[in-house]
C-alpha cells in the first residue's frame, strides 16, 4: 500500500450552532469515533462549513497526513461541494470524502437526546467504514454550447430570452401557441400601478421577434431532450401552420375571407369567435396565421374550400405542410412553462357554467380588454352595464378540498378589477375575501385606495351563488350568500355579475415537459427548485433553470425578476465555457465481464456498447449518467458505478448494523 492508500481518516463533527449540538452529544460522538480503526483524528467544532472549520480540515490534512475525511453535519445536498472543495484545496482528491447527515436525519427528527447520539455514532461510523473504500476519481472538462433554450413564450420566457440574448448568446425560444405573449397578453391593466399591459408587453414581443440573437419557434413543442449540462441536444417539433412563414405578409385577408367563422376564440376565453385560419389576437407575434386543422373545411372535413389560398396574394397557404423537426445544440435550458387558471366548474356552489353572469377572472380580463369581445366595455350578456358586481376571492385556492396553497395574485387582481369596474361602470363592487394578501411594493397602498373608492369588502368565504331571489324586484339577478365573519351575520347580496377570482395551477402539459427534462414536481405539480431558499432558480438537473409560474404562483414583477435571474444563471454557466463532467459514472471491469449484454439491455441512455473483439461491454463515458441500472443488472458484478461500488455500499451497511 502506498502512503496515499493507507487510510488515515480525519473525522469532524459539526455542532451546527444549536442545530446539532444540544440534541446530539457531539463530544461523545467524537470520543467514540476516535477509537475506531484508521481514524487519526476526530474533532468537533461549532460550524464546520465556516472558514475556520474548513481550515481545520485543510491543516489536519497537511500536518497529520490525513488521506480521507468524514464530516458529520448537515445533508450532503447542502455542503458536500463545500467540503469536497476544502479537501481538494489541501491537495487531496475530493472523492476521498464522505458526509454523515446528522442534522436532517438525526438532531432535527429525533426526540430523545440519547437515541440521537447513538444514531449519530452509528452513522458517523458507517461514513468512516465507507470512506475507507473510497477511490480517487477524475472529472473531465467539456466545452459548453453557447446557446440557451427557453421553453415557453410568456413574459417569463420572453424576458429570459431577451436577457440571455442581450448577453450575446444564441437563444431558441419555443412556444406551443401560435403567438408569444402568454397570459400577460390577455390582460388590460396590471396591478398595482395600472400600467397598460399591452403598452409594456407588445414592444417586448417585437423585441423578441427582431432580436438577432433569438430564434423564435412558435406553434412548436419540445419533442426530445438528450445530453447533459452544456451539451444538450434538443429536438423541436414545428407543428404545421399550413401557412408559409416566409411568404406571409400578415395582411389578414385570409382571416377575413375564411367562411368557418364560428369557432370559440381561445384567446378571448370563449367569449367571441374566430375563423379557422387565425391569429389568436391582432398584435400576435409573429403576425402569421395558423390553420386550425380540426375546423378547417379542407384539412378537417375534406370539403372543397381553399378560399384563403385563393385570396392569398403571396401564395403562402400550404395545405400539404408537414411537421418539421429541428435539432438544436443547447448549453442551458430555461423552463418557463407557466400556469393555467383553475377551471371552477367543479366548484358547483359558485354556479360557473350554470349562470351566464358568472365569469372567471380570465374571462373578465378579456371582457375588460380593449382588444376583447366587447372592445373593453364591461357588459353583461344582455348588453347591459352591471349595476352591482361581486368578486369572489380564493376560488380553488386555500381550500383543503381543492388547492391548499394561496395563488398569490388573486387578491391583487381582484382589487384591480374592483377599481376598473368602479372607474368604467360606476357599479357597486362587493369583494368576498378570506384574508387580503397584499405583500408587495405599493400593494397595500392599492388596497387602501380601492377601499377609499367605495369598494365593499366582506370577510367570509361564499357559501353559494343562486338565482333564487328574496325580493321579487331582483328577479333575474344572482344572489351571493356568505357569512360575514366580522359581523357574524349571513349576508345575501343580489348582484348582476359575479367574477370568480380563480387560482393558478401548473400549465397543461407541464407533466410531460417535466418528464422530458427529468424535472421533479411537487405535490401540486409545480416544478421543484434545487433549494427553496438558496437555489430557487436552479433544478436538480444541472444546466436547467426555472423562470416564472412553472415553479409556483407569482405576480408579474416577481416573474420578470426570476426570469432575469434564470437568464443570469444560464449566462454564468455559458460564460465560463466549460463544465466538469460527473465522476460518478459506470465502469465495467473487462476481466469480470462475461459478455452477457444484460447491462446493454438495461441502459436507458444507450451508453454501453459491445466490443466484439474482446467480447466485453464497454461504457461510453460521455453518455453515461451514472444511474447504475447496469450495476444492478450485471450478474457477475463486473459493472459498477464509481463512488457507489459494492465495497463502499456494503461497507456502509455492515457498519450501520454493528
Amino acid at each position: 500500500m502506498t502512503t496515499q492508500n493507507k487510510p488515515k481518516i480525519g473525522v469532524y463533527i459539526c455542532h451546527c450552532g444549536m442545530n446539532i449540538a444540544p440534541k446530539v452529544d457531539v463530544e461523545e460522538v467524537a470520543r467514540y469515533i476516535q477509537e475506531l480503526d484508521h481514524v487519526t483524528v476526530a474533532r468537533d467544532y461549532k460550524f464546520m462549513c465556516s472558514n475556520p472549520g474548513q481550515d481545520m480540515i485543510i491543516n489536519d490534512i497537511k500536518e497529520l497526513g490525513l488521506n480521507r475525511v468524514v464530516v458529520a453535519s448537515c445533508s450532503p445536498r447542502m455542503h458536500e461541494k463545500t467540503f469536497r472543495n476544502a479537501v481538494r484545496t489541501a491537495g487531496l482528491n475530493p472523492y476521498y470524502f464522505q458526509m454523515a447527515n446528522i442534522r436532517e436525519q438525526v438532531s432535527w427528527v429525533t426526540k430523545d437526546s440519547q437515541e440521537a447520539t447513538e444514531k449519530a455514532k452509528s452513522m458517523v461510523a458507517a461514513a468512516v467504514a465507507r470512506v475507507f473504500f473510497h477511490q480517487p476519481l477524475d472529472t473531465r472538462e467539456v466545452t459548453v454550447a453557447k446557446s440557451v433554450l427557453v421553453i415557453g413564450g410568456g413574459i417569463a420566457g420572453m424576458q429570459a430570452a431577451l436577457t440571455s440574448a442581450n448577453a450575446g448568446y444564441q437563444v431558441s425560444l419555443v412556444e406551443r401557441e401560435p403567438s408569444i405573449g402568454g397570459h400577460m397578453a390577455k390582460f388590460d391593466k396590471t396591478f398595482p400601478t395600472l400600467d397598460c399591459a399591452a403598452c409594456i408587453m407588445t414592444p417586448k414581443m417585437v423585441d423578441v421577434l427582431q432580436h438577432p440573437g433569438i430564434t423564435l419557434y412558435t406553434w412548436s413543442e419540445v419533442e426530445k431532450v438528450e445530453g447533459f449540462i452544456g451539451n444538450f441536444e434538443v429536438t423541436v417539433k414545428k407543428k404545421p401552420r399550413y401557412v408559409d412563414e416566409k411568404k406571409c405578409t400578415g395582411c389578414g385577408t385570409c382571416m377575413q375571407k375564411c367562411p368557418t367563422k364560428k369557432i370559440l376564440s381561445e384567446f378571448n376565453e370563449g367569449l367571441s369567435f374566430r375563423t379557422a385560419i387565425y391569429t389568436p389576437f391582432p398584435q400576435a407575434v409573429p403576425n402569421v396565421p395558423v390553420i386550425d386543422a380540426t375546423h378547417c373545411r379542407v384539412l378537417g372535413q375534406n370539403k372543397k374550400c381553399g378560399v384563403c389560398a385563393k385570396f392569398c396574394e403571396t401564395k403562402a397557404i400550404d395545405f400539404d405542410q408537414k411537421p418539421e423537426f429541428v435539432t438544436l445544440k443547447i448549453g442551458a435550458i430555461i423552463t418557463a412553462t407557466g400556469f393555467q387558471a383553475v377551471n371552477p366548474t367543479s366548484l358547483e356552489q359558485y354556479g360557473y357554467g350554470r349562470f351566464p353572469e358568472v365569469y372567471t377572472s380570465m374571462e373578465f380580463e378579456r371582457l375588460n380588454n380593449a382588444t376583447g369581445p366587447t372592445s373593453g366595455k364591461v357588459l353583461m350578456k344582455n348588453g347591459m352595464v352591471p349595476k352591482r358586481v361581486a368578486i369572489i376571492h380564493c376560488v380553488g385556492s386555500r381550500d383543503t378540498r381543492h388547492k391548499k396553497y394561496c395563488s398569490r395574485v388573486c387578491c391583487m387582481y381582484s382589487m384591480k378589477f374592483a377599481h376598473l369596474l368602479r372607474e368604467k361602470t360606476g357599479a357597486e363592487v362587493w369583494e368576498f375575501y378570506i384574508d387580503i394578501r397584499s405583500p408587495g411594493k405599493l400593494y397595500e397602498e392599492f388596497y387602501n385606495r380601492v377601499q377609499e373608492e367605495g369598494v365593499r369588502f366582506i370577510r367570509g368565504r361564499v357559501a353559494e351563488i343562486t338565482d333564487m331571489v328574496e325580493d321579487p324586484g331582483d328577479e333575474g339577478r344572482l344572489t351571493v350568500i356568505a357569512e360575514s365573519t366580522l359581523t357574524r351575520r349571513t349576508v345575501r347580496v343580489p348582484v348582476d355579475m359575479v367574477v370568480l377570482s380563480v387560482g393558478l395551477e401548473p400549465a397543461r402539459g407541464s407533466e410531460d415537459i417535466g418528464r422530458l427534462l427529468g424535472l421533479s414536481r411537487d405535490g401540486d405539480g409545480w416544478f421543484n427548485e434545487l433549494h427553496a431558499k438558496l437555489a430557487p432558480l436552479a433544478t436538480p438537473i444541472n444546466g436547467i433553470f426555472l423562470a416564472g409560474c412553472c415553479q409556483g404562483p407569482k405576480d408579474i414583477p416577481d416573474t420578470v425578476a426570476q426570469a432575469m435571474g434564470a437568464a443570469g444563471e444560464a449566462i454564468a454557466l455559458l460564460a465560463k465555457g466549460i463544465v466538469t463532467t460527473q465522476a460518478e459514472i459506470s465502469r465495467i471491469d473487462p476481466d469480470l465481464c462475461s459478455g452477457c449484454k444484460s447491462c446493454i439491455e438495461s441502459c436507458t441512455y444507450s451508453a454501453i456498447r459491445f466490443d466484439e473483439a474482446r467480447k466485453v461491454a464497454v461504457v461510453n463515458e460521455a453518455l453515461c449518467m451514472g444511474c447504475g441500472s447496469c450495476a444492478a443488472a450485471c450478474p457477475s458484478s463486473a459493472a459498477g458505478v464509481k463512488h457507489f461500488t459494492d465495497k463502499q455500499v456494503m461497507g456502509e451497511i455492515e457498519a450501520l448494523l454493528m
Partner: protein
Amino acid sequence: MVKSMSDDYQPKIIALVCNWCTYTAADLAGTSRLCYPSNIRMIRMMCTGMIDPKYILKAFLDGADGVFIGGCHPGDCHYINGNLKFKKRMAGIEAIISQFGFEEDRLRLRWIGASEGPEFQHNMTDFIQTIQNMGPSPAKGLMVL
C-alpha cells in the same frame, strides 16, 4: 425508538433510498422537524435502479430486521425508469430473502417524492411499527452471522 412492552427488542432497519426523491423528502422532514423513531439507518443511492439485490440480502444477513426501499413515483425517475427496473426485480428479491428465511414483509418498497416530507415521516413510523410487531427475524437466531 419504538420499544415493545414485552422486551427490549429494538428493530434495526436499513433504508436504501434514492438521492433525488426519498432522500430529499427525508431532508425536508428534517427541515420541517417531523420526528420519527431513530431505528432507521439510511443509505443514499443515486437511484433505486442501482440497488443490487445482494445489498438487501447483505443487510438481512448482517442483522437488519427490515429493509426499506424509497424511490421516485413512476414517471418521476431522474434516470427515466430506474425505479421501475427496481420494481421489476422486487418479486425475485422477495423470493431470495424468503429462501433465506426472512419474511417478505420485512422488505418494503415505497414511492416518496422529493416534496413529500410528511409522507416520509409517516412511512418510516409505519414501517418501524410493522417490523416491531413482527418481532426479531426468526432466521437471525438460526444463523451464525
